[in-house]
């Protein structure tokens, strides 16, 4: 029984290199009673390489998809990919603001886009529409050994005037969701620091340095795993770890998971169902200790009982 329906735009990478992101998104949202409808005949979002060559064309490519959504009678489209999200939002906002630009873009399109669709990330609807409370209710499984550092990357909430979600310098959306599903979240200072992925081909040395810093900070924060919301972050930080280790003399072995994969684990899905086995760095050692959530609750209650007399005493002392 679906309580909510969303038009869901997967985008190119979630059909290929990041198919596990798509798998986990679908699993998690299904568990939460959300029905996802994929628009017919969706096409490239325009994020690359069009946007670095021709703004009108890039916006037209994005607007084509938004027009399809608009024609379906929906006012919201969701996507997991920050690049698609950014492309949609940029095209939408500029068309809405500049009548002349809108005309230019619509002149290219068969069906005009009338600026009636808001694009949101899966992260945003999980936090705002569904809410941490509902997200927490579906948890069945505890992950006692997992200590995650949420890494937001560069574009999910920047530039703030376009993305209009969360704090651009200290975002908390994933922290809140991870907290809601009972995972240990570490205070991570490099949440929005550049990992260098955009220069992955051109300037490998620089990327290695930047990514290495991010990974170092993960360990400094006391975490053993990165959770991400962007498949490019995931790919860069996961696949490159070997390269970094060999060039920088480090020995990182930090799994990089999509936040939906971690949520899926707490909802009781297997690592295979969530595509965790597709990653380069193996997460098995961190998640093999998973157990029914009731066990943790029991453990916590016992701890609290043992603590209580002490706490009471301390309180008395204070007064």
């Amino acid at each position: 029984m679906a309580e909510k329906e969303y038009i869901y735009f997967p985008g190119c990478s979630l059909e290929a290199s990041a198919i596990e992101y798509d798998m986990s998104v679908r699993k998690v949202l299904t568990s939460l009673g959300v029905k996802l409808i994929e628009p017919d005949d969706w096409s490239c979002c325009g994020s690359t390489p069009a946007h670095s060559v021709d703004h009108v064309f890039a916006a037209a490519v994005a607007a084509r998809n938004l027009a399809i959504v608009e024609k379906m009678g929906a006012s919201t489209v969701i996507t997991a990919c920050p690049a698609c999200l950014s492309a949609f939002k940029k095209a939408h906002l500029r068309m809405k603001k500049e009548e002349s630009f809108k005309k230019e873009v619509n002149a290219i399109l068969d069906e005009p886009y009338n600026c009636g669709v808001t694009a949101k990330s899966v992260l945003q609807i999980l936090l705002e529409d569904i809410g941490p409370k509902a997200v927490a209710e579906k948890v069945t499984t505890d992950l006692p050994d997992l200590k995650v550092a949420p890494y937001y990357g560069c574009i999910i909430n920047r530039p703030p005037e376009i993305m209009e979600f969360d704090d651009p310098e200290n975002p908390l959306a994933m922290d809140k969701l991870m907290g809601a599903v009972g995972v240990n979240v570490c205070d991570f200072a490099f949440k929005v620091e550049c990992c260098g992925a955009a220069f992955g081909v051109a300037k490998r040395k620089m990327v290695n340095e930047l990514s290495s810093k991010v990974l170092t900070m993960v360990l400094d924060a006391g975490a053993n795993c990165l959770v991400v919301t962007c498949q490019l972050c995931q790919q860069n930080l996961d696949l490159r770890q070997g390269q970094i280790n060999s060039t920088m003399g480090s020995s990182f072995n930090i799994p990089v998971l999509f936040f939906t994969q971690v949520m899926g684990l707490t909802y009781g899905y297997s690592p295979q169902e969530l595509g965790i086995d597709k990653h380069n760095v193996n997460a098995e050692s961190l998640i093999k200790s998973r157990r029914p959530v009731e066990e943790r609750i029991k453990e916590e209650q016992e701890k609290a009982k043992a603590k209580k007399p002490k706490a009471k005493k301390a309180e008395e002392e204070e007064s």
Partner: protein
Amino acid sequence: MRVGVFICHCGNNIAGTVDVAKVAEAARMMPGVAFATTYMYTCSEPGQEEIKEAIKREKLDRVVVAACSPRMHELTFRRTVEKAGLNRYFFEMANIREHCSWIGEDKELNTNKAIEAIKLAVEKAKQNKSLVASRFKINKRVLVIGGGVAGMQAALDCADGGLDVVLVEKSPSVGGMMARLDKTFPTVDCSICILGPKMVDVSQHEKINLYAYSEIEEIKGYVGNYQIKIRKKATYVDWSKCTGCGACIEKCPSRNAYDSFNFGVAPARAINIPFPQAIPKKAKIDAQFCRQFIKGKCGVCAKFCPVGAINYEMKDEIVTEDVGAIIVASGYGLIDLDKLPEYGGGRYPDVISGIQYERILNASGPTSGHIERPSDHTEPKTIVFVSCAGSRDKSIGIPYCSNFCCMYIAKQTILTKDHIPDSQSYVFYMDIRAPGKGYDEFTRRAQEEYGAKYIRGRVSRIYPKGKKMVVKGADTLLGTTVEIEADLVVLATAVTATPDARMLAEKLHISYDQNGFYVESHPKLRPVETNTSGVFLAGACQGPKDIPASVGQGSAAAAKVLSIFSKDTLESDPQIARVNTNVCVGCRKCIGTCPFGAIEEQQLRDGRIVANVIETVCAGCGICNSTCPCGAIQLQHFTDNQLLAEVNALCLT
């Protein structure tokens, strides 16, 4: 009617882009104009002489000067015509400089525009009526708002000049920001040591009535006669009994009050005295932290107070004071760290603001002058100072320079080295701004004698790494990025207007700029005056300012007040509303719309009710004039007929 028109060249300022000879020729053709001439500088003494002579020679009864803005010289020329025996309101000014020669590029168009401006002024002048100012007595008491160094200086100078002073300070003690500082630049003398005696003088001066922990509630009246309502905030301690012994503070069980004097460096007790040298040295309770108020039971301080001064039932009290002038010295504020998310936004305890560091350095501060990190109380060895933390940053709406940060950072690096000889200070800066006497030498000493390393560039991010804070920035001189692992980071947070600056300005009817700082009458020539007569400015409420500048302004404002109070009466402006009782139908609409309550009902002998303007209360805005349906109430010098003459001069062709 014989109008004389005097057209000023203003050197080349006007004559450069306006054909003044042609303008004079056109003016001579205007109906009513008996004489028109041009002069190089009409405002000069010979220029004014020429006007006086022409008035007598040509028997002029109206004078128009076409020159700069009337906001500049209207008063000058009014006096000139008055000296020649004309009523000063028979004078009109045409602005052909600011509104014409300086802004238009086409000489033909400018010339024509100047002619029209004169035509407008001539038509208005012909409608002008003789107006005579009446005199009224002034109340020679002065209100000083703000007990920082500027306000105290102003209060002391006024009091020494024989005036009664009402000094209102928002916080429980006078002293302001300067009382919080450790040392002052560039002399590195102890701040409280030089301020303390002034504070004592303020409290002991028989002419100064200090209201500490009080705010301005309402201001009514006009220059010479203001009625001020002051809200004395409830301290819950009877200050007539409190001896400042501190017994209550020692016993207070609520230990987590926010210490606004120390900018939150360490917690305070719910009942507190801000600092040892406080004037008055009296305790007050912060109700939002006090157990008695939160939980309804405690009463510890009341139990321990040896003189029974605690009174939990105390309420705010409103007192009224009548004064004749007001000096505003309400000071400045600082941005919160949460405006700087890239520097942690206040999340990291070892990233602090400059004023917090000042309190840490201060011997009477929460750490007794030992420099320690707020997180673990260890002594920092590497300290990074970031100047322009928010200042000169349009993206957060602070485009201006905060004026004194460069200097206090230099001072803080010197003090740091004095306290911890094996420490190393780094300073990230945009430009070193040290224009005062001995200032540049001082910043050089910080670098050359005290070894502070100055890095020219901005900081992009501050993040924790283990126990250290990593400061990542650019070194624009080397053209590279730098990262410094610091034990403590000090941000020179931007200076802002105080949060309630706008509210106070509205009460005072003075204007403020887009940043909330008060606007002076003239940026160069009237720096402590405002456009509201009787209200003067001193210190950082007008813009970020260091101590010597604030003290200078305090004295300047006091001198202005003493000068207007040197007479017993003031002239009232006759440009106020007047009622033609023959025409007034008694509809009372003017009474309801007057913002000053300056209009009252009056019953004539025939029983008719008409409006009556209270001369001393009317401020001359003319709202009543545009409200009155029958035109019975007319704002003198801006009457309907005067404005209609101007409209007609422009439109009827």
